[in-house]
């Protein structure tokens, strides 16, 4: 019987790997996801069989409750809320690891103290609790920031890093106490609480536009938590899948950091853009001469163009403007205009955020072009429409060594013949710096809520 279960785990592991591999290709991705879901089912069934045929009824009740909640959330969530959803699910994975480890610990420390507990197991338990706790509260804090329940800006205070360090030392000391004497329940509880506090403290100093890095990193943590739980339970399927997730999170984290030209350490230390503030305009705001454009005029410019590139940013998600953007694309294409989208790797609040939104509004994915592939094309483009993006199109990243975003890879929209920027106001972007693009002679500002101004412009385009 045991052999059968082990072999089923092996099959599940292979399916997980094949499933992830298939996620590499857009055509096969859905199939890959199904495969990995099937692998999960196999692993669960094998575990139920392993636990004997007299499965406690509680297991089914819990799975029914969890499954129903998960399914309802997954069906109801808006595509614009995807980053929040991923943060929540991620946090739940973390807390599950924490509870599994704690449960195993409780058995050893209180309920069956006669069980021998070796050093490897206890260290694995401690790590599971620590990583699981940080993943949970960190993800929940990220959720709060993304959904606007707590300030999305960087929250920094004096002595923040020192406090984190002290808490980390407390966690380690408690961990050592538990490692020396398994029965030190109090130390274990303190460590669990400290890990939860640490998760919050680590995420609050990180501001909105750095969220893609944080989400990727937390994703990686949830994998690592599953992995350490695998060591606790001596279960290789947990270790393999946890390692796969851990690796994927780390890769995404690296990609995001590179796209912002910042090191992971500087993102984690946080506080970026907090000092310069993100209020209306900047000190040099009044010196810049900007040109405004009306809806009718903008429609005419688009109508007479032959190539258009649309640059979406987080503002498009906030304004829910993806559908009207797609309508505009259809209209322009019907007029024979070549329309494409330029996607900056960190546009939005999570990796690939813009791609999902535009896919939702039925933009074919071969219209979405990566930064490196499209950057040379801006010079031959008639009109660029920037919808709710700011720092990722700021030419200061190329020209101004004093700028905090200097040398960050940007989309070279300023090279196009005309740039139209749809923006609510002159407020600075996340980095809290003036965007010199807005003062360029070829740049026109289309002020107002992206959704309503673009809807009006689509109306105008229809009449032209």
């Amino acid at each position: 019987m045991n052999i059968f279960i082990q072999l089923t785990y092996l099959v599940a592991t292979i399916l997980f790997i094949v499933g992830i591999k298939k996620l590499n290709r857009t055509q096969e991705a859905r199939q890959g996801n199904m495969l990995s879901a099937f692998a999960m089912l196999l692993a669960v069934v094998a575990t139920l069989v392993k636990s004997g045929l007299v499965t406690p009824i509680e297991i089914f009740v819990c799975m029914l409750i969890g499954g129903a909640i998960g399914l309802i959330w997954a069906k109801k969530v808006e595509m614009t809320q995807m980053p929040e959803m991923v943060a929540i699910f991620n946090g739940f994975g973390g807390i599950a690891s924490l509870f599994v480890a704690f449960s195993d610990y409780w058995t050893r420390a209180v309920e069956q103290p006669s069980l021998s507990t070796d050093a490897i197991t206890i260290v694995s338990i401690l790590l599971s609790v620590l990583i699981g706790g940080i993943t949970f509260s960190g993800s929940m804090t990220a959720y709060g920031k993304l959904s606007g329940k707590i300030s999305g800006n960087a929250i920094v205070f004096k002595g923040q890093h020192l406090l984190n360090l002290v808490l980390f030392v407390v966690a380690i000391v408690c961990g050592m106490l538990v490692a020396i004497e398994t029965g030190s329940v109090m130390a274990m509880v303190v460590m669990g609480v400290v890990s939860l506090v640490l998760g919050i403290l680590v995420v609050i100093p990180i501001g909105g536009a750095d969220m893609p890095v944080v989400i990727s990193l937390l994703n990686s943590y949830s994998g690592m938590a599953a992995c350490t739980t695998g060591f606790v339970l001596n279960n290789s399927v947990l270790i393999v899948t946890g390692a796969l997730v851990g690796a994927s999170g780390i890769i995404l984290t690296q990609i995001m950091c590179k796209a912002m030209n910042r090191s992971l350490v500087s993102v984690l230390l946080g506080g970026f853009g907090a000092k310069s503030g993100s209020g209306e305009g900047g000190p040099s705001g009044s010196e810049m001469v900007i040109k405004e454009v009306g809806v009718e005029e903008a429609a005419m410019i688009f109508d007479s163009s032959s190539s258009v590139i649309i640059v979406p940013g987080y503002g498009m998600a906030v304004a829910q403007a993806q559908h009207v953007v797609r309508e505009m694309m259809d209209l322009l294409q019907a007029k024979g205009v070549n329309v494409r989208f330029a996607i900056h790797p960190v546009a939005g609040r999570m990796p690939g955020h813009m791609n999902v939104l535009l896919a939702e509004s039925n933009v074919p994915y071969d219209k979405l072009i990566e930064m490196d592939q499209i950057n040379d094309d801006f010079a031959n483009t008639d009109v660029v429409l920037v919808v709710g993006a700011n720092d990722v199109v700021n030419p200061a990243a190329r020209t101004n060594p004093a700028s905090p975003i200097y040398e960050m890879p940007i989309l070279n929209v300023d090279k196009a013949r005309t740039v139209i920027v749809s923006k609510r106001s002159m407020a600075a972007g996340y980095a809290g710096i003036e965007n010199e693009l807005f003062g360029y002679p070829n740049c026109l500002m289309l002020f107002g809520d992206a959704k309503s101004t673009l809807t009006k412009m689509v109306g105008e385009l229809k009449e032209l």
Partner: protein
Amino acid sequence: MSIENFIFLLYILVLASYCGFELISKVPPTLHTPLMSGSNAISGITIVGAILCIQEGEYSKYMGMVALVFATINVVGGYAVTDRMLQMFKKKK
């Protein structure tokens, strides 16, 4: 856990991590969000650990039950939402 067993599990960890890096480094940016939510669902594999915790005991069993509810939300919700997203990615008709 014997030290031999531990070393064996370490081998698994190292190879699986390497495998993960190789597999994922080629994912196109279009699929970054589905990759993230899909891998997130996979990390709900802790569900297996939760089931194993509910076998006996009293408080340890309750903790296992809490873990199981959270892990199931993670797994079911994660896969369902990833599928919903991937369904939307279409090529030009």
